[in-house]
């Protein structure tokens, strides 16, 4: 368990975009948030942190994608729950550092729900988070 303070970068219609270094710091306080974090998007992230806390959108790091695409495994799980999610390329942002995901990150992978909201590969994480916010607000 980590106890970091999240930075809120945007608020609109009861939804927020928040930045965290680690997905493990997600709590019930993040209900209805789009969380942009420095974590990988491995299989444990969706069931252990994102889904139980009512997070509405997630952007993390693809961790080089790695063995059996493990670095982005949570994207599919989240799509199955109707949650938009995307990962930034590990060469575009420093893993473990949430502000780097948000400020430097370039999207490498997008799940089906996020695609429908207009999130695409090559887009900045900032723009992707805005698209999610707009998409969820509709």
């Amino acid at each position, binding site marked *: 368990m980590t106890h970091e303070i999240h930075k809120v970068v945007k608020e609109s219609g009861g939804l927020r975009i928040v930045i965290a270094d680690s997905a493990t710091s997600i709590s019930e306080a993040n209900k209805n948030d789009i969380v942009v974090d420095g974590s990988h998007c491995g299989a444990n992230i969706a069931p252990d942190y994102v889904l139980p806390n009512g997070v509405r959108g997630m952007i993390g790091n693809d961790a080089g994608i790695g*063995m059996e695409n493990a670095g982005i495994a949570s994207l599919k799980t989240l799509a199955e729950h109707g949650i938009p999610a995307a990962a930034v390329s590990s060469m575009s942002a420093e*893993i473990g550092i949430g502000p*780097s995901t948000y400020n430097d990150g370039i999207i490498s992978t997008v799940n089906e729900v996020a695609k429908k909201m207009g999130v695409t590969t090559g887009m900045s994480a900032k723009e992707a988070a805005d698209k999610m916010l707009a998409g969820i607000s509709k």
Partner: protein
Amino acid sequence: MAGTTIIKQLGNRKIVVADSAAGMDEKFKGDVFVDGSHCGQNVGEMTIHNKMGAMIGNDAGMGKNKAGIAALKMCDEHGIPAAAVAAMSAKIGDGMSTYKDGQISVANETAKKIGVSAGMSAKEAADKLLESLAKSGK
């Protein structure tokens, strides 16, 4: 929440496996912590804060500015042996995969002195670290 599994004990030292470095806790002080997390800066902070005896994580493809292994140098500065497995050898986010499948890609200077080297299995590396810690009796 991150679960933890004790794999092995030698003297008063253990090898603890967890999907996430967030499973680190002071109750594992002095133990070998093997996890599925990247070895980014925040994981270094957790390792040092919780006084782990040693740490093995995933290199997350190294990534931008080698952020995926930033913790290794930080651990060196605190005399903590640490190593990372290649993202292509183990599934990030899955601690048991780090332990069972992982191949060491990078070891920090402290771990190197204990005999941990690139190309070694994570299991063998963890055993070396456990033996060294048990022997030190610190």
